[in-house]
């Protein structure tokens, strides 16, 4: 019989590509620990909601949870480094990520906060700027448009191009687009299909502008009480899951362009020159704002991220 129970809460619906990876990861842990850890996954906010995940694990109410990097916000701004415009576009960066110094840096910060990180699950780097009547592909195209915002440093980049970012939760974006509360949105390309953005937006330009990831973390006290073998199982499964997530995300993104075009959306694949032009405007504004927001962490972290390339 298992000697450890690991309750693991996450927000993704059971069919979501990350939920699939998490299930696979869970059974891998059970296998690697020879059944000594019983991993119980609670998907779709069914045990603890995404807002409560982080303190629930830190407090030890449950052993494990997954959060998107956005969930950290002002609590640990360094986690949002992947919203640096056009910095995390390369999938190879993500294959190297779990063993990188940048990841180790964030793992230290998480441990300071009272959480032991166990896996990094890359979600997407293929986003689309959606709009009507014209593509958003150069800084000038953004002048005067209301666009869904992300986090303060990224919004600083949008503002620098002349857009006004409006924040709202993901569930509200569709209605906001259809009623004209906002003119444009930035979303990952798979979500543009699943959330039916094609019904309210007819132009989309594909941009590797940000990366979104989830990460799994456990309560450090519980982790320290595990046998060496069980800790090793967590570490191995974590590394495997990180790779699965990169592959899975590629598969999730693969069908999206054709599906969008079938719905009558005009797609534009931004060229490296176009990306560079946007990066040139956005990145300095991002770095300045990120520096203020994330404090002393930011400089070292940005340096470590550059090393990944």
């Amino acid at each position, binding site marked *: 019989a298992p000697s450890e129970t690991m309750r693991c809460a996450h927000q993704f619906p059971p069919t979501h590509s990350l939920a699939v990876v998490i299930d696979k990861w869970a059974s891998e842990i059970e296998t690697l620990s020879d059944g000594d850890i019983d991993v119980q996954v*609670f998907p779709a906010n069914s*045990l603890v909601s995404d807002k409560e995940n982080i303190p629930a694990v830190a*407090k030890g109410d449950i052993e494990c949870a997954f959060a998107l990097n956005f969930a950290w916000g002002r609590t640990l701004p360094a986690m949002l480094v992947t919203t640096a415009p056009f910095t995390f576009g390369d999938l190879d960066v993500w294959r190297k990520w779990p063993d990188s110094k940048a990841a180790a840096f964030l793992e230290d910060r998480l441990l300071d906060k009272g959480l032991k990180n166990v896996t990094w699950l890359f979600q997407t780097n293929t986003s689309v700027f959606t709009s009507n009547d014209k593509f958003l592909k150069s800084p000038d195209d953004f002048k005067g448009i209301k666009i869904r915002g992300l986090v303060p440093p990224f919004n600083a980049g949008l503002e620098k191009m002349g857009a006004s970012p409006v924040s709202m939760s993901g569930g509200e974006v569709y209605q906001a687009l259809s009623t004209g509360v906002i003119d444009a949105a930035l979303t990952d390309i798979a979500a543009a299909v699943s959330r039916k953005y094609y019904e309210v937006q007819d132009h989309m330009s594909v941009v590797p502008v940000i990366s979104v990831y989830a990460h799994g973390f456990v309560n450090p006290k519980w982790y320290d009480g595990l046998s060496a073998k069980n800790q090793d199982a967590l570490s191995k499964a974590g590394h495997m899951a990180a790779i699965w997530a990169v592959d899975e995300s590629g598969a999730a993104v693969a069908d999206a362009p054709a599906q969008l075009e079938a719905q009558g959306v005009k797609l534009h694949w931004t060229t490296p020159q176009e990306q560079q032009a946007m990066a040139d405007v956005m990145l300095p504004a991002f770095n300045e704002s990120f520096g203020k927001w994330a404090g002393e962490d930011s400089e070292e972290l940005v340096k470590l991220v550059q090393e990944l390339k």
Partner: protein
Amino acid sequence: MTALLVFSALLCVLLAGVPIFVALAGVGVAVLAIAGESVTAVGDTLFATLNRSVLATIPLFVFMAQVMVRGKVIDDLYQFAHNLIGHVKGGLGVSTVLSCTIFSSISGSSVATALSIGSSAIPQMTKFGYPTRRSLGVVAAGGTLGILIPPSGPMILYSLVTDASIGALFLAGLIPGLLMAAIFSAYCMLSARREASPDFPGFRAVWGATKKAFWAVMMPPFIMGGIYLGVFTATEAAAAGSVYALLVATLVYRSFGWSQLYDATMETMRISMMVFAIIAGAAIFGHAITLIRLPVGISEWVVASGFTPFTFILVVMGIIFVMGMFLESIAIILITTPIFLPALVALDIDLIWYGVLLMVNLELAMITPPVGMNLFVIKGITDEPLSEVIKGAYPYVLMMCLGLALLVAFPWLATALPYAAGYGL
């Protein structure tokens, strides 16, 4: 086994007359403590459950109806229905059903509907010699439309638990609600043989009543239209509806001053607290049983025992019907939905459809003895013996069972509208 133990404990505490929210929270805390789980999770659970802007719709929809009632709009509403249709055979009953239907689209609660319409309709029906038992029944049953015809407080709670779209649920309740109203009306007309009807008051009187009731009758299209045209979210619609009600009550009826505002607000607060208390208690109970994996266990058992979606729905509807005899409807939603949700998902059952089935079943719960909120309300406003109210409501229990069966047999009755409107990807 654990499941049986937990639920019998809950049932015992509930039947001991402890406030429902205390029973739910208490049993939840006990489960956490016995399972050796952290009891401080209660604090996080309370916060996570209440920190949702959608919950603001509950007091706002209550407030909207309160303002309409205190602004004396309801009498005009009933008079409108009465003048329009009272003169046909069984017309007194039909006009009560009609005014319940209209008020249901202003009110999110069955109790409020039965209370408000009952207070104007029962004296009128008595005046024209409508059989007492039958008038008690028609108000008790007509009132239950409050939670099926949008807006609906219980549907909001259901959507919170399941993440189903509120707009879709509201739309899904419309046809079944009108269907139930039609069945009730048909029964009133068929069962009316001997009783007298008032004379047709003439077109001038109908026109006069229509003018007077105009602002009340225009309210439902304003609220629901706003939601479906994408003008408002559900929360915003509740706020806009409240402002509309305030404007009508102060500017058109001129019967609404500061003291009415004070009363309406205090009453709104207290009614909302009845609901919020149960939401809070149920959240703690729900967290505890989720943590010990009761719902997952039930779901696995359901799948392993080879239930088809159809047999599962029949069993679940039977269970909820029995619970509905004894328990209050908000508690039923908040206790059963998290338990059945994994199984519903595993069997690929449409959550909008199930939501509507649940609502009709809860309408039944309002009028089935021994515990039926609408039975109590009608007894309260008429002082008739409860047994008379129960006998009056009895035919409607059968009709609602018929309605429920129709919805089980023809799911499109519920799902056609929301799908046509583009909900439910």
